[in-house]
């Protein structure tokens, strides 16, 4: 059936299949997954950064605590914030390269007439 449609009207077949692909459970699942992964990472970013900033605003004593001879807790926290932000970015890239891209290729393969 699909083969006939493909040979008869290539354009119609592509159009129809685009609609099918978008409404397929696979496509919906990967889109939902994409936003839940970036959503979780975004929440972690927000909690850590705004947590850090609010902590400075409300509890300066904590950040002024010494962790070395003179080094305050605030210094490793500030550096840690930057490192953590980079790690979150890296996690997204690894996920997208390993999970998202192959899924996208698979769905795109369904679209194109072979």
């Amino acid at each position, binding site marked *: 059936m699909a083969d006939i449609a493909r040979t008869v009207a290539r354009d119609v077949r592509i159009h129809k299949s685009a609609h099918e692909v*978008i409404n397929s459970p696979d496509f919906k699942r990967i889109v939902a997954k994409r936003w839940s992964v970036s959503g979780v990472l975004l929440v972690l970013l927000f909690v850590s950064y705004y947590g850090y*900033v*609010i902590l400075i605003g409300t509890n300066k004593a904590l950040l*002024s605590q010494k962790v070395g001879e003179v080094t305050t807790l605030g210094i490793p926290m500030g550096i840690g914030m930057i490192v953590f932000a*980079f790690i979150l*970015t890296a996690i997204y890239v690894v996920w997208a390269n390993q999970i998202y891209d192959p899924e996208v290729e698979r769905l795109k393969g369904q679209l194109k007439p072979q």
Partner: protein
Amino acid sequence: MPPGGQIIETKLGSPNAASIFFFFVIVVVTLIITYWAAKRTKTSKEFYAAGRSVSAAQNGLALAGDYMSAASFLGISGMVALKGYDGMIYATGWLVGWPALMFLIAEPLRNLGKFTFSDVVAFRLQQGPVRVACAIGGILTVLTYTIAQMVGSGALIRLMFGIPYEMAEIIVGAVMLAYVLFGGMIATTWVQIIKACLLIFGVSVLTLLVLSRFGFNPAELYAAVATQYGQKTLEPGALVTSPLEAVSLGLALMLGLLGLPHILMRFYTVPDAKAARKSVLYATGLIGYFYIIIPIVGFGSAALVGRDMILKVDKGGNMASPLVAELLGGTPFLGFIAAVAFATILAVVAGLTLAGASAYSHDIYVSLIKKGKATEDEQVTVAKRATLVFGICAVLLGILFKGQNVAFMVGLTFSIAASANFPALLMSVVWKRFTTWGAVASIISGAFISIAMIVVSPTVWVDVFHNKEALIGLKNPCIVSMTAAFALGIIVSLLTPDLSAQAKFEDEKLRTYLGVGAE
């Protein structure tokens, strides 16, 4: 007495052989690249997007070069030198936008757009109103940032090279226009790559030189700072007093990045969404590394040069890095660092000019006046004319605002970017029922609430207009203006349902997530 001994005399501000040498090397090399790029800049795709031939690593470097302005290099090291830990808090705010850019915008932006972010917002909406609104948001963002950069650069170049302010503005304008006019995005990209490499190299060497004075142990550096200026220097100070204010500033810095037209435009220079994604990771790594080491330079300058000397040269503290470079590396290294700061200014202003010009030439002229039917020649011609006009405006505005307090301009830029450009961009990607008038309402309200609230806030009402008391206490309006922009975008969209825009959402999704049909 600082352990390193104070420099009594500094060569800063007087032209010396080393700084002039490095200055000319940078200008000559970048102009040769521009000549090479000019031969490869014939079409609009080459002019705006470097033919989409930039690799992920190159774009990562160029993004870093576009983003790390003289304000972050000289300003943050100066702030750490004079105010201590507060400068570090500020530095973190400049990085945290990058992961957010990755999670929310980078890939959809690359897949949906052609040259500017308004391509994305206008994807399934009515071209006319949306293009005009986006151009207003884009140009306001770029213009306020350009004023801040030009005023800052004139003052910095005068301090470092002893060139008169007006002359500095004209030199920056002329060199930067040569890059953009003749070499378009290809030349701009290479200027940004060279600048990023020079900046990261220069600051790394400076960091090592500072640490070498303290047995390569940061704890000894902190101890020296604490001995001279007290333990308070290593504790949070006056920067963050109210959590509301801090969160509002944080939101502007973080989400403003997602609405900066000159940054967003860079994503069209890579071949696909995968390269866009990788380039954000490279940029985040480079910028993160930079913001981790720059406080060491600042603390080093406080410990070795001394705050009195830094303040004597420039009240704003901007010369903390060049001074410590001179102390530890002599006049040649000072010359190198000054030239790097100059290259930094050029690269950022070139990126801004290209973005400002494209908001008119691509969004208004080609998409609106010509209904997308301009020939390649017409597109490139109008883009170059817009570049010329924008460049001349930048120089004139720089001269006009000479000596003005423009510190609020950077805050204003990020606030407009986060409130006008970002909400419309995000809603157009993720929300099916977003409409033309919802987008217009969101962009216009975001921009004008930001401007109005900054004008009556302490930063302008008191610091610039010298009134006794501000009408509102909040220094950064982002938390209010961005919320309002989202709310109005949603309410107006719900009031003006647009079935044809909803119907086109399927095509948009196919492009957003699978990259099918992406340019």
